[in-house]
């Protein structure tokens, strides 16, 4: 018995002749935030549905808080936010959340929770009159019910404005701080970048990467970009010394691997007054994602 909140071992899922998930293994520890990235159709939502026990596995093993997926213990310890969720338009936010709290079998401070997600003023209005973002917030409120051991969020940022996204990540941090294992399926890379502990990438049902952002960058060996701005007419001289490309009258762009980075910086420093400014761009998640999502596809 492990103390992982969520363990996925060699999971395989066939739908007819196509293999939707192929030998996927993934663990999420209590308090850890893991991002699950992939194209549409890469198998993210299917993986989440197998964890919920909504779709039977073809092969492999999943344990949620030590229990079988879909068992009542597993369902009690899991919170789920479906992609673009909607609710019955005739109910109010408060009524819908009350139903979920009762189904969960635990008392909850319903107005407090709705306040927490910014629906305090709208809780007695009908869901039919809610905007897409408000419905998403209501979905988020039910994730917070009953201190879940595992939270599965499928595209949680879809339909949210930038400020709501900040709120969302604050809530995810809170969940993680109280010991919930959080799995976020997303393709909003830039936000996931700063807000998760680990990143797993699915490509056509196969897990192609699973590590911290730094380790993935190092493994991929993607170049860091140095943009050097020259003073006066020194641009040609810099381009010659550094071996980069001129991109306009006064700037030179140089690509270097992680292990060359410090050496190149020393070269720049040695040039003294010829350099006016330097800008350094490490590989972004987007580059990484492109690297891992394309690798081996040729």
């Amino acid at each position, binding site marked *: 018995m492990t103390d992982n909140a969520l363990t996925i071992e060699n999971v395989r899922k066939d739908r007819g002749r196509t293999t939707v998930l192929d030998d996927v293994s993934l663990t999420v520890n209590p308090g850890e935030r893991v991002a699950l990235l992939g194209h549409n159709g890469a198998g993210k939502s299917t993986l989440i*549905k197998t964890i919920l026990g909504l*779709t039977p596995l073809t092969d492999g093993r999943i344990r949620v808080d030590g229990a079988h997926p879909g068992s009542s213990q597993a369902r009690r310890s899991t919170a789920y936010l479906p992609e673009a969720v*909607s609710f*019955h338009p005739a109910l109010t936010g408060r*009524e819908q959340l009350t*139903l979920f709290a*009762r*189904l969960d079998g635990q008392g909850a401070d319903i107005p407090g929770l709705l306040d927490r997600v910014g629906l305090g003023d709208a809780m007695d209005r009908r869901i039919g009159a809610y905007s897409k973002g408000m419905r998403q917030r209501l979905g988020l409120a039910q994730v917070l019910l009953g201190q879940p051991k595992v939270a599965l969020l499928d595209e949680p940022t879809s339909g949210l404005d930038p400020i709501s996204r900040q709120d969302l990540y604050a809530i995810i941090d809170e969940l993680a701080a109280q010991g919930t294992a959080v799995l976020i399926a997303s393709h909003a890379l830039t936000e996931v970048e700063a807000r998760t502990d680990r990143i797993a990438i699915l490509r056509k049902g196969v897990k192609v990467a699973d590590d911290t952002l730094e380790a993935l960058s190092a493994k991929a060996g993607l170049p860091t970009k140095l943009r050097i701005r020259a003073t006066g007419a020194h641009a040609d001289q810099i381009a010659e010394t550094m071996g980069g490309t001129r991109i306009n009258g006064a700037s030179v762009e140089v690509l270097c691997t992680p292990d060359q980075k410090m050496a190149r910086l020393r070269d720049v420093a040695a040039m003294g007054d010829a350099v006016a400014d330097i800008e350094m761009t490490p590989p972004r998640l987007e580059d990484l994602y492109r690297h891992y999502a394309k690798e081996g596809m040729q």
Partner: protein
Amino acid sequence: MTRFLSIAATEMLILRRNRWLLMATIVMVLFALALTFAGSAPTGTLGVDMLTISVTSMTTLSVYLAPLLALMISFDAIAGEAERGSLSLLLSYPAGRGEILLGKFAAHLAALGFAMTVGFGTAGAIAAWSGGAGPDSLIALARLIATSILLGAVFLGLGYLVSALSRSATAAAGLSAGLWLVFVVLYDLGLLGAVVMDGGGNFTRTIFPWLMVANPADAFRVWNIAASDGVALASGMAGAAQTLPAWAAPASLLIWPVLAFLLARAAFKRVEP
């Protein structure tokens, strides 16, 4: 248990909120009243009280209306949730699928029961007040209400079945309409055609009555007509019912709701949201 009750309470709230309950009750009252007064003419000639005539008219009405109202309420139950994306969320909670379906069923049946009781009750009370009623006709009215609710229960179950098998609420609505047409109209037409072809032969005497009560809508009709002499007299439809044992129609109408619910439960179990 509390989960089942919360589902039922929420469903009831939805039926009240979207005015389904109000509309269904009004429809039932209006139709029952209209039929009671339109059908009040033959009272004198047949020598039965007005409530009996009213129950006979309302029996004919209920065969069409009870399945229709039940299907209208139930076709959306699973397909609608699946379409909104809330079904997967609901199923991620500890409530079992049987519990969810039973909760919806309880609320829907209660709403249907309310509309039936108020509708038939009002019309019956007015008929009794204006044209007299006896113990027999009061029992016939109570039987009409109870069997209408049973008939509604059958079609609630069939509606859930269709809803679980459909990919969308629109498809479920279409299938429900087809189901209604088959059970309430086409089945009888088919039987009628067979009887005419047979020309009073072996089929008409032995197999036909059983085929008739196998359909819950016909079992409902037979039960109401055969159990009351007055109603049978007023409807003039006693012939077929008399060749069957007395338990046949009640058995059919009691087995069907259970069967329909179990079929729906089995179909719901296989739904992957």
